[in-house]
């Protein structure tokens, strides 16, 4: 069977507050972000499975707080004073990575203290809550455990529907509601699975130069 390989054309992912879907699964985390700067402590943590919208929430907060996103890499390279020189509000995506790297743990600890001193805020996102991270540095661990941790729960059907539509919208693909309602009850109810299904449909439709229909979804989901 011959098959045309499609060009890996990239697409943009809309990350503003206007693009975020709020349902009961993520309402608490969303409210938390919206309530900044009323946060009760330096550090807040948002945790949830991959693809559940943590990064999106983080970008919303960065826009609101005029903050800056750091990677664990940045932490290793710079001293905390320099990191917060230009910004008192810092977000670190996928912060769990820091655990077990002694240098990174200490850097995060000092960053935490530096932000506490300047009255800044720190937002961490991760798949698991800090209590489940294998943090070695006890001083850091107790600070992270004391930080409010907001979980994003498994997506409900409403969120899955909206996310499915958003994924197609991000890819600028016009699909009918019939296709969306066909897919939702037939896939694993994780945002990860949802993303994979959209990607599969997108690639197949692009390869075969066709639209995304129930017939195509039926073929790929079976």
């Amino acid at each position: 069977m011959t098959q045309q390989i499609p060009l890996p054309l990239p697409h943009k992912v809309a990350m503003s507050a206007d693009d975020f879907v709020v349902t009961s699964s993520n309402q608490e985390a969303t409210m938390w972000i919206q309530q900044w700067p009323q946060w009760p402590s330096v550090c807040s943590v948002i945790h949830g499975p991959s693809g559940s919208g943590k990064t999106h929430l983080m970008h919303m907060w960065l826009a609101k707080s005029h903050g800056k996103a750091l990677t664990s890499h940045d932490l290793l390279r710079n001293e905390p004073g320099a990191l917060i020189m230009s910004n008192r509000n810092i977000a670190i995506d996928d912060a769990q990575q820091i655990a077990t790297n002694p240098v990174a743990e200490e850097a995060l600890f000092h960053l935490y203290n530096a932000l506490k001193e300047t009255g800044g805020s720190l937002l961490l996102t991760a798949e698991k809550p800090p209590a489940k991270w294998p943090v070695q540095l006890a001083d850091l661990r107790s600070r992270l455990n004391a930080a409010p941790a907001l979980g994003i729960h498994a997506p409900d059907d409403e969120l899955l529907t909206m996310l499915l539509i958003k994924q197609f919208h991000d890819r600028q693909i016009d699909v009918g509601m019939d296709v969306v309602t066909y897919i939702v009850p037939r896939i694993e109810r994780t945002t990860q699975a949802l993303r994979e299904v959209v990607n599969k449909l997108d690639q197949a439709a692009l390869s075969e130069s066709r639209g995304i229909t129930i017939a195509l979804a039926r073929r790929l989901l079976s």
Partner: protein
Amino acid sequence: MKLTLERAALLKSLGHVQSVVERRNTIPILANVLIRAQQNAVSFAATDMEIEINESVDGQVGKPGALTAPAHTLYEIVRKLPEGAQVDLTAANSNQLTLSSGRSHFKLGCLPIDDFPKMPEGDLKQKFTLSAADLRTLIDRTRFAMSTEETRYYLNGIYLHTAKNKNVEVLRAVATDGHRLARVEMPAPRGAKDMPGIIIPRKTVNEVRKLIDEASGDIEIALSEAKVRFTFDGVVITSKLIDGTFPDYERVIPTGNDKLMQVDTRAFAAAADRVATISSEKSRAVKLSLTPGHMVLSAHSPEAGSATEELEVKYDGALLDVGFNARYMLDILQQIESEGVSFSLADATAPAIIQDVADASALYVLMPMRV
């Protein structure tokens, strides 16, 4: 209204405007051409709500006036009149048009001119001119790669924008259907600097292309983020743009393809065309097998049989088998004017770059097929 035109001039104008009019229309007025007669000028306008075309010609106007008449019918009538005929268009009121030429007489129903939609003018701030040859190049080198798949509306056109290439400001046209991509560029004309990137819809591209061959002088282009206007001698086409984001295409143009192959353009095209006769109509797959100095083209089909053809090429890379859609290859080869064409390849599943060895202004990316 009363006016007289020479058949050839009328046919040419009607030919231009009726082409914009859709064959099937749910809104009746969109099937009509708007004719206005003023002193010694006659103008014809048509629209499908996305594109508006307006053409002015000289004519003998006995009595000024305006009306709308069915565009296709009018065009068919004029086309069937004998060459060299004089055509009289008269209307006592705006409900009926009488067309007379020699012994032929036609009466056509009209629709009120007030119903004829007018595209809001809008402010087309960005203005520049291109020669007919340059605009033709931009369109011809890319339009074959436009997508016709409607769900991906943002690929249904040519992306026109400016970019920097080695510190030179260039005007670029890009099109892709997700299987191949065509990119052509030329030094940006004055006035194009900082223009917004726009996606010109397929139909507009094709209408503009038809007019280029008749155009003599430069073509003026004016645009905003929502519309574009092409002004030829007597013809003006204004079009809405595709409201979408063109993908960041640079990211799919490979930079590290290390297997270079050069071949005679025409010999290769002819061989690919011959071998593809065997491939199934749907996939049109042809396999290229490269060894130093040689290329074997082959095709297999369970129904039709198989074919191979050998060509001399300039190639000293590792052995490589890669499949391509022959139609896509021929589309690209057709745009290559010099004797040599170069392929830069990486492996059997990665994008290939195809270029004219004598012309770096156009670049084509082609995705392989799994064969």
